[in-house]
């Protein structure tokens, strides 16, 4: 009887499973995609213009060449140059006006798409540091580093008093693009914690920890509530699978004219820490 009981328990608790299946989806009716995340960091700033592609198709994106792209604020306007196919860069002498609202105009095949966004100042990154993780706390399957000592990054910052603030933060290994994905970033708004000091925020995930000698880069962006909601929309769509998920829905866009994508412009802070 005991054996029967255990067999039943084992059956019962090993029931839930996932598997990869083949499925036919409808063809996409292509739309213009404009993605732009412009910051005040000293690095090339660009806007990408493309078209949506079939969801399960082999192509990840399709670029559009020959668009006219203009960024303007209350005092200036700048036309962006197409340096690569579908990528339009701001002039090197462009400087951000914090607190100003910027408008992005994109003209494709005589159709104009427009979006605006407030450029917010970013709070200072403070106490950027690292901490060693206890190996006992880390699931061995998640650790990719071949080391007995593994580390993550931490930092502090002071939230700006006032509503509608939100932040995006990410860390990555210096000199590589590894980890430069929204999947590895984190974002939050200050709805319940307005004006608070945030201390010892841990960013690193167990699947991309650092080893001794690495230099980690930490970036913080002041994106505002509206862009945080855009990221939240994306997050809710790409991490589906829970029983309580809301119905699938298109993520928001701030472009007029039927384009998808989003225009973000934000103050940013960057800092480095050497793991030693």
């Amino acid at each position: 009887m005991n054996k029967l009981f255990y067999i039943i328990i084992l059956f019962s608790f090993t029931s839930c499973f996932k598997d990869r299946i083949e499925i036919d989806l409808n063809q996409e009716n292509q739309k213009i995609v404009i993605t732009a995340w412009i910051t005040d960091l000293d690095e090339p700033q660009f806007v990408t213009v493309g078209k949506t592609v079939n969801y399960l198709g082999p192509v990840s994106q399709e670029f559009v060449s020959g668009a006219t792209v203009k960024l303007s604020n209350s005092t200036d306007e700048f036309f962006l140059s197409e340096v690569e196919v579908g990528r339009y860069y701001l002039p090197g002498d462009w400087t951000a006006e914090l607190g100003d609202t910027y408008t992005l105009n994109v003209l494709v095949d005589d159709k104009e798409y427009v979006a605006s966004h407030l450029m917010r100042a970013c709070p200072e990154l403070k106490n950027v540091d690292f901490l060693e993780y206890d190996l006992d706390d880390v699931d061995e399957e998640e650790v990719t580093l071949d080391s007995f000592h593994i580390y993550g990054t931490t930092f502090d910052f002071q939230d700006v008093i006032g509503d509608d603030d939100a932040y995006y933060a990410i860390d990555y290994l210096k000199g590589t693009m590894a980890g430069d994905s929204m999947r590895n970033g984190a974002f939050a708004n200050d709805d319940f914690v307005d004006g608070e000091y945030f201390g010892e925020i841990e960013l690193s995930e167990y699947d991309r920890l650092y080893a001794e000698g690495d230099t980690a880069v930490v970036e913080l962006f002041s994106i505002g509530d509206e862009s945080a909601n855009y990221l939240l929309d994306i997050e809710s769509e790409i991490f589906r699978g829970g029983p309580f998920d809301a119905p699938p829905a298109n993520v928001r866009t701030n472009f007029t004219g039927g384009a998808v994508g989003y225009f973000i412009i934000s103050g940013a802070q960057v800092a480095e820490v050497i793991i030693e």
Partner: protein
Amino acid sequence: MIKNMILLWLLSLIGTVAICQGDLKHTLSGQISDFKSGEDLIAATVYVPDLKLGATSNVYGFYSITLPAGNYDIVYSYVGCEDQLIHIELTTDVTQNVELEEGGAVIGEVVISAAKDKVDQNVTSTEMSVQEVSIETVKKLPALFGEVDIIKVIQLLPGVKSIGEGSSGFYVRGGNADQNLVLLDEAPIYNASHVLGFFSSFNPDAIKDMKLYKGAIPSHFGGRLSSVLDIRMKEGNSKKFAGSGGIGTLMSRLALEAPIGKAGSFMVAGRRSYIDIVSKSVQALRGEKTDGDNVFYFYDLNAKANYRINENNRIFASGYFGRDVLGFKNDDESFRVEWGNSTSTLRWNHLFSPKVFSNLTYYYSNYNYFLDFQEDISRFKWTSKLKEHSLKFDLGAYLNPNNTLRFGLHSIQHNIAPGNIETIENDIVKQSFDIQDNTSYESALYINNEQNLSTKLKIDYGVRLSMLNNVGPQDVYGLDDDYEVIDTTRYTGAYNTYWNLEPRLGVRYKLNESSSIKASYNRTAQYIQLASNGNSATPFDIWFSSSKQIKPQLADQIALGYFKNLSNNSIELSAEVYYKDFKNAIDFKDHAQLLLNDNLEAELRIGKARAYGLELMLRKNQGKFTGWISYTLSKVEKKIASINNDNWYNAKYDKPHDLSVVVAYELNKQYSFGSSFVYSTGNAVTFPTGKYDFLGVAVPIYSDRNDARLPDYHRLDFSVTYRSKKNENRRYKSEWVLSVYNAYNRRNAFSIDFKQEESNPNITYAERTSIFALVPSLTYNLKF
């Protein structure tokens, strides 16, 4: 014109009563109960063969029938019990209490009558779109994890759908899950499930009877658009101390009942799961490390007592308390989540005369949850609750065999505290966020008459006048066309009122002794609804009432049916078609933020919906072999402003084809078998058509809402029950039940999601999640 018609109707009723009195009529009334346990029998039949007249007992077992003075043979019958024929000399009003026995012997002067004469309600009643399944039948059927669940059996009935594997939620004739009024001893249960929906809140050992109204909803019920599930707890054995219980794979249960003196009885039943203990055992069997501080369990308690003060007065007190607990704790951090319902009901039955039965009910219902996270010195607490107080006075006047009048009034106070959040450090509250409480009063007056116009034609007509009052103090947001707040107004006292007239009509025309056609129309209004946007309801969904911005939802339903009994009433056949039109239907905008939102109105979108379908049912209720086959062909669509480009779209619970085959077979006294097979169209879902890249992730693009389907769903379950031969000679009777859920191990899709390959994020693939494969379970039941 209308005034004249009402006057004519009143005159006809008064005239009928006057004629009754003039013809020296007398009333036969009394209580019908079970011989062994003393439980009241609901819907037992009282039939007068000489006059071809009948009546049925109400939910308290009371019956009343007024006949001309004379001598009559009266047949009392109830499904599963031997009929009793009692000779009555009706020269004055007579009280005749009757006890019916399951396949029992002759009692006193009572003789067994032939079943063929008894009134068959499937054909003769005006009721249509109503389903009943006895709790004994429920216990014969296979169950997930061996846990008998009345809601899962309801899902096997025509017109009732489920959308999640193993889920206890149900959808009736195109209505959302929150459009079902689930009553336990008249008190609403706001979250009728445990373990995030896998088990219902109803302990089968505590339940006596259940009835599901899918349409033709009587006027004494209101407040929900689509159905009423009326569940009654046992009164308790008034003859002897008795008990029942069981030990299953995931939970154990025990129910005890006993008399209270000679005029009352009580029942107490409890369940407690041990999912956490079992899962730790499984981890241990797998050789995995266990964490001793995890908890995950639920429990519930049902209790009821009744006492007959005298022939004319009886009181009842009943209650339900159920709770789910989930949490973990270690040295640095902890979290604990709890949710649950509690209800208490007090009722007073009073007989004003043998013809006038009254019931006064007070109930209190409470649903609440909290989350408590703690890390070092910081703590986060989130609480939410809904409370209801209600008073209902219901009168039944059995005017004569051709008219049964029912009327009353009902008032409910809804008090909703949607959410309070506190962040705490070192036991000092640092920040508090409180979504304002909401109070409203829902009231109704109703009247209904069931009238025989001829031996063939019977009508059931009534009306319900319902009303909602929003009461302050309340800040009400004014919204512009883009749902942005443009102003805020502070109200105190009653500041907003809605009222609706809800006509109810049912007609039966008897074609012959074994068949009839029926038609019904009803309007229903709903003033309180659930803010739930997921595929499954969560314990953290909140209810909200109609308000200045949210008009009450309305539904008009018409239904037409053909009813036929075969083989001496042992087989019932029914075919119904219905059309339902929803007004002020709600849905939520894309990416709606429903939790902790003090401006929920801005997340709602209003429109209309329609549902229509055909329901077929073939059912065998008697004999060794019982069961039913049900098939539903249906459609439900919505058209809501700003959703799906303002076009019609399938509701998520639109499943056009739905087939259930349910059988139970009693081989002998030792062995019985149960099986069910279900097949349905896959759930309506939304799949992406396109994508674009943003920061390394594939952002999906969707076309129409719910225009795709999950693969078709089908599943076979079976159970074998073994009872020891020793049961016949001992008071303690036991049985083993082996259940197998999903016997052929079908991998039904709970959901299909899309993922990017980790090694190559440019490649996206579809991933199917299945909840249950083949699930065997073993349950030990005992009864004494």
